[in-house]
């Protein structure tokens, strides 16, 4: 029985997703676990200040920063708190970005999505395609009830992805984060199962 037909309020059993890292596929993309072989592709966008302007982590200064990220990221998966995916372009095999579930809360049947994309691949609908698939996977396969996402108030591209994926703006948190010496307001989006 798919988990989505389970209407109980008991905590979700998500163990199978942590025993074997899921791999997802869309028309143009494969969402798969990151590997050390992705380090140069990741460094390409993680070192781009235009890309990292709106993310919480510091811009990578050298590939050593990228290696440190790749070494530390699996810890949260091991703790069953997050699942991260490399976004691979089927056509060329290039890793063009990253996305995943940042906070997985089986008790409340909810999770949060985050993402980042190499600037050379903006405006082609790739991120909308990836996030659509994450939302489908969360509802249909994990049995989630609610998927949330947040972005900086002035991150127009990210908000557009959320809106194209059917998410609703639930509010704005003022001065939510302190980044590079200034306070940032954040937009809070979410989508519920069946919407």
């Amino acid at each position, binding site marked *: 029985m798919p988990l989505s037909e389970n209407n109980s*309020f008991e905590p979700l059993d998500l163990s199978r997703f942590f025993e074997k890292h899921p791999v997802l596929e869309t028309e143009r993309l494969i969402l798969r676990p990151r590997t050390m072989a992705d380090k140069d592709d990741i460094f390409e966008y993680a070192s781009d200040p235009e890309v990292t302007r709106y993310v919480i982590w510091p811009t990578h200064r050298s590939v050593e920063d990228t290696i440190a990220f790749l070494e530390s990221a699996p810890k949260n998966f091991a703790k069953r708190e997050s699942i991260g995916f490399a976004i691979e372009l089927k056509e060329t095999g290039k890793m063009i970005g990253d996305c995943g579930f940042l906070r997985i809360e089986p*008790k*409340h*049947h*909810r999770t949060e999505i985050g993402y980042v994309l190499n600037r050379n691949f903006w405006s082609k609908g790739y991120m909308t395609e990836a996030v659509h698939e994450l939302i489908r996977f969360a509802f249909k396969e994990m049995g989630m*009830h*609610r998927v*949330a996402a947040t972005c900086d108030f002035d991150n127009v591209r990210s908000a557009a992805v959320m809106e194209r994926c059917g998410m*609703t703006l*639930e*509010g*704005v*948190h*003022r*001065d*939510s*984060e*302190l980044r590079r*010496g*200034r*306070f940032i307001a954040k937009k*809070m989006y*979410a989508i*519920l199962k069946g919407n």
Partner: protein
Amino acid sequence: MSRIIPPDLSRFFELHPTLETERLRLRELTTTDVPDLHAYYSDPETALYVPFTAFTSIADTEKLLGRVANGFERKESFMFGVERKSDGKIIGISDLFNLSSQHLHAVIGWGLAKSYWGFGYMTEAVREVIRFAFEEMGMHRIEAECETENIRSIRVAERCGMTLEATRVENEINKGRFVSNYVYAIVRE
């Protein structure tokens, strides 16, 4: 732009702070407070809109005190006991958690035993904890989350100058149903 220096919060965890208002003392909870605290934590009516089930045994309240002590020990959170000065009774609690010296924010929570509702005690206590977080700890943003049906808690947030920022629809499971949450916050001027 003036540079923002991250506050060192560790000094607040050396000796538990004690705060005082006109009618209340906010202080560290001790094992002698267990009977008073249990009156609050065992009442199903006060537990209705908060994400715990009313405690059925005094041991649950003792365990809670243990968790509070751990949070303080690990320098992660405070829970103030709200003591009424006139008779020394612990009438409720207010806690500060998710403290971030990086982003200068924290989350505040509160709760009051039913027999003390309607006298403005909670507002008096929460105002003081917000003042402490801003003026003494150097925080910039204090957030609170409550269920959308929890009218009394909503009023406390509003009386303390907090603003409704977001409605998280069907955000939590509480007592066998999905409930929505309001996010209130106050930002330092």
